[in-house]
């Protein structure tokens, strides 16, 4: 499924990678349309080719309406990419996402196919406060019928968005805004990252560290420090949360016997909770120590940097957690 053709690898930003994916898929398939607020700016600012303008619907501020419009369009032959911009706005469209996009295929006994992509970005450490800082992917993980990806690198965001657009099911792409302007290697041209396949960001034998989305950075930092202490940490990026690559996580855990999960979402009923539960259920006999979840605590995100910044999972939190497991 994965393919990395046209060999040339460039360093481009996560943001550029997002729009390369759009540009390529919209050029490849005329059924792909974009719907979202203020998105005509992408052709105006030269981020997407002007020739795509006819398929870019710069929408009124009507999230439930235009998400549902996307679902209806998917139901009748288009392949819409709906940009919700900031993930906290997703609640306004929750009905169309959960009651319609996720369920229509099932309720119609498979008559319907809903090839739609919803994009939502999660903002951290920018003092965006309570209405612009949520990371609600765990909520959607509880809604059967959706697929959910949390790309952490420029290559993955490109490859996963392209795969999502080609997938016949609704896929929600949760982008990490703190990564938008970070660069990384991305193969030129066709590059698809399959849904449901984790990436091992760093191999290791003593501890399995599952890091979700933007948490890779602190996870890798912590793993480097711990390596110096003689503790070999395997860092796994699930990349997609539904489907979740259980074999990758459980396989690693079988070797290491120790599990730490770093999840920037709020703690209760988080993706970290789910992964911990799976491990406690399916890999109990491998476990040598308590499972540790490192998450954002259960508070709305405050405005002031002095309040906000310490809330997110930090390298030191991981170090503390791993050291306690030894």
């Amino acid at each position, binding site marked *: 499924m994965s393919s990395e053709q046209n060999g040339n690898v460039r360093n481009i930003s996560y943001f550029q990678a997002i729009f390369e994916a759009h540009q390529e898929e919209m050029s490849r398939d005329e*059924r792909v*349309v974009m719907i979202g607020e203020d998105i005509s700016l992408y052709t105006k600012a030269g981020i997407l080719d002007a020739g795509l303008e006819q*398929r870019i*619907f710069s*929408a*009124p501020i*009507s999230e*439930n*309406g*235009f*998400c*549902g*419009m*996307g*679902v*209806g*369009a*998917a*139901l*009748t*032959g*288009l392949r*819409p990419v709906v940009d919700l911009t900031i993930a906290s706005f997703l609640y306004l469209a929750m*009905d*169309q996402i959960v*009651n*319609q996009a996720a369920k*229509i*295929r*099932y*309720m*119609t*006994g*498979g*008559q*319907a*196919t*809903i*090839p739609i992509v919803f994009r939502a970005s999660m903002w951290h450490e920018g003092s965006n406060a309570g209405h612009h800082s949520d990371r609600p992917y765990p909520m959607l993980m509880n809604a*059967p*019928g959706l*697929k959910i990806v949390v790309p952490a690198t420029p290559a993955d965001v490109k490859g996963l968005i392209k795969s999502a657009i080609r*997938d*016949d*099911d609704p896929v929600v792409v949760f982008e990490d805004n703190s990564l938008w302007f970070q660069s990384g290697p991305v193969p030129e041209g066709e590059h698809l990252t399959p*849904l*449901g396949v984790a990436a091992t960001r760093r191999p290791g034998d003593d501890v399995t560290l599952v890091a979700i989305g933007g948490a890779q950075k602190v996870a890798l930092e912590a793993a480097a420090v711990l390596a110096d202490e003689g503790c070999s940490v395997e860092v796994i990026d699930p990349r997609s949360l*539904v*489907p*979740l690559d*259980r074999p990758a996580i459980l396989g690693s855990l079988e070797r290491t016997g120790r599990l730490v999960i770093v999840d920037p979402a709020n703690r209760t009923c988080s993706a970290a909770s789910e992964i911990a539960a799976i491990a406690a259920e399916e890999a109990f006999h491998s476990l040598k120590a308590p499972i540790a979840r490192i998450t954002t605590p259960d508070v709305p995100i405050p405005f002031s940097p002095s309040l906000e910044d310490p809330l997110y999972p930090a390298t030191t939190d991981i170090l503390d957690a791993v050291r306690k497991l030894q």
Partner: protein
Amino acid sequence: MPPTDTERIALLRSELAIRVFEEAVKKQFAAGLIPGSVHLSIGHEAAIAGGCAALATDDYVIGTHRSHGHPIAKGADFGPLMAELMGRVDGVCKGKGGSMHLTDHSVGVMGESGIVGGGLPLAAGAGLSAKVLGNGRVCLCFFGDGASNEGSFHESLNLAAIWQLPVIYLCENNLYGATTPARSVIAVEDIADRAASYAIPGVVVDGQDAEAVYAVVAEAVERARRGDGPSLIEAKTYRYGEHAEGLIIPVTYRDESEVEEWKLRDPVAILRARLIGDGVLREDAAEALEAELRQQVAEAVAFAKNSPLPEPEAAFDDVYSNPIAGGAR
């Protein structure tokens, strides 16, 4: 272009089909053969038949929770519909949807929504795809008076209007949302007046007169196909029965006299009398038509009863088109 005699007879046939089918549903529900709750369209036949008659086969329809009539008027087979209502494997949705989700893509009925107002944005989307794909189709979206208070009504009509999407929003205003009188929760007299918020046509029509409904919907369909955008049509109608069969808390919220008064303007009776009066249909032909439909519906009931319940394992199918590893367990 006024409808031909054949078209007028087809319109009556469509009304009658809904009536006869729904009477059978009521009976089967009472007999315990239809699980869940069931919202019947008896009384609404003119709005449904008249609206759907204005469409081509490949035009889209989006329904509501009260949507047995919509697929019927669009030409769906009775058997798979009845089997669906009974939760059988030969149901049009394989027993997964039931009464509130009767869907038949083969006749362009794309889905109903158990969520009131849930279909309105979907219809805008069907209009969007028709426009982008240039396939000349239109979408007829039914909704209730109650649904006109949902935010999705406002957002959808505005979306359809700004992009001039080929959608006809047809309100079956039966004066009540469940037990709540429309006049107590809708700030305007006519829902059609809300068209003013979107600079689109807003038309009130006698919802008991299928030909009148047909005429206004046909005009809106033409307009939509021309690329001139959506319309809002309000058909004043009435449901004869309770909000749903098998309600938990029975309560009085309308006068029996009101029900009786509306029954005096029965949509089936009106059209039937008119066609006979106009010499388009003979009394005995009308009776034969009804008998034929009763026969077909009886066969559908038999078909449904003979269809087995789905195997429990089937519950795990159809969640995804492209199933996920590990699956849904």
